[in-house]
């Protein structure tokens, strides 16, 4: 299939840093950048900052075609996203492999999420194949796309419109060396897990998003009510953002909201126990226990429900069902708890 010649810069030689006056796309047609498989300390710092949500959308690599090692026209071509974590996972997994990497412009989003949104998609892949004049760079017509790019990429469309055959590689870049031996993936390479390590790395981003709110709420409650209650606020929030991702598979029930309610109730028990040791009267203690268990678990549960967006397995139908089932329950528990706490406070004032 002959590549369409682009209106300008069509004479730029491959790899040549030809000055080009085209405006618009950042990719100069025919330009090939060079990369390697080394993860530097600067890369590691960038990954760390990305995990902490610092300059969240700024962890990008320049889209376009890259040369890894010393590729020949027969070397494989891999597609990736222009998110540093995605690109770096790919190039470091390909240590010792001569290949081309075609980086799509996913606006700094990882492959899977970008595929869900369509930016890691059929249109963008075809656009980049044409813009980089890939058909002149390699003699074959195959491109290895990460399996998790499949929600955005239709192999039929890509073949029909670009002449390139999409080969869906394994889920994880780390499995590529084994995959490349036979170009077949084992069922394990085709399935997504959500192990402890993958859950833990998500905690910082969850945390930095709620920290400002949590700090304000804790201080307000601390100053206007008391510091014990402030500690409960902070505990409920940390349970939903830190403990929940870590303990996810071990908390009973399937629904995230009910898991969150269970966890939220558990972390309130030490407070209730400490209330019982500080000489609260039985009726005061009972009131304290009931209000604590009504007000705080819904906070933890709400944060837990939000974590569905970061998991690798929750369906939209299921999450929607959870929202419809539990939103009112959570709001109701919280509201009744607040009213009850206020009523008990007023009664105690009257008694004393």
């Amino acid at each position: 299939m002959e590549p369409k010649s682009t209106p300008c810069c069509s004479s730029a030689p491959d790899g040549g840093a030809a000055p080009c006056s085209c405006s618009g796309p950042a990719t100069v047609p025919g330009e090939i950048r060079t990369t390697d498989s080394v993860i530097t300390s600067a890369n590691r710092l960038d990954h760390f900052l990305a995990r902490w949500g610092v300059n969240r959308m700024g962890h990008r690599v320049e889209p376009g075609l890259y040369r890894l090692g010393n590729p020949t026209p027969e070397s494989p071509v891999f597609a990736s996203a222009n998110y540093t974590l995605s690109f770096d996972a790919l190039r470091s997994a390909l240590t010792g492999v001569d290949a081309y990497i075609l980086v799509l412009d996913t606006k700094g989003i990882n492959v899977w999420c970008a595929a869900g949104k369509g930016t890691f998609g059929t249109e963008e892949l075809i656009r980049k194949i044409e813009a980089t004049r890939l058909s002149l760079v390699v003699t074959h017509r195959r491109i290895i796309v990460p399996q998790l790019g499949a929600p955005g990429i239709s192999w039929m469309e890509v073949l029909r419109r670009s002449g390139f055959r999409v080969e869906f590689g394994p889920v994880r870049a780390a499995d590529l060396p084994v995959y490349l031996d036979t170009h077949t993936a084992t069922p394990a390479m085709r399935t997504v897990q959500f192990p402890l390590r993958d859950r833990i790395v998500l905690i910082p981003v969850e945390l930095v998003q709620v920290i400002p709110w949590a700090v304000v709420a804790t201080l307000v409650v601390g100053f206007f009510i008391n510091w014990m209650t402030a500690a409960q606020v902070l505990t409920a929030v940390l349970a939903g953002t830190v403990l929940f991702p870590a303990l996810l598979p071990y908390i009973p029930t399937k629904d995230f909201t009910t898991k969150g309610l269970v966890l939220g109730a558990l972390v309130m028990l030490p407070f209730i126990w400490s209330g019982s040791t500080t000489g609260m009267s039985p009726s005061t203690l009972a009131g304290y226990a009931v209000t604590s268990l009504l007000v705080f678990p819904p906070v933890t549960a709400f944060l837990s429900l939000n974590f569905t967006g970061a998991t690798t397995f929750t369906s939209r139908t299921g999450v929607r069902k959870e929202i419809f089932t539990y939103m009112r329950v959570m709001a109701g528990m919280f509201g009744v708890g607040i009213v009850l706490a206020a009523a008990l406070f007023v009664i105690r004032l009257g008694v004393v």
Partner: protein
Amino acid sequence: MFDSYRKTTLELDTERCINCGICQTVCPHAVFAAGKKGVILAAPEACMECGACMKNCPVGAISVESGVGCAEAMIRQAITGSKTATCGCGGEGESSCCGGGANE
């Protein structure tokens, strides 16, 4: 009880299936398995509605309502009344969804 994830919108038209196996390749949760005449839904409850199978089925035998499975996006959708739920990680970088990033 307490399991909202048992049913999904995934549907397979076994009449149309030509047994090419691409759905088995792209599915990240091993929902499909090889059957006698065509693929079968081996674990439909594991479906996360990502839509990869529908997008790549050459004969249109699979339908699923795919979309962002993100509570925050859906709550925002419910509040703002917009038709489609989009997760905020597309530009504003405010949402906790799409936190996963180690994926190739």
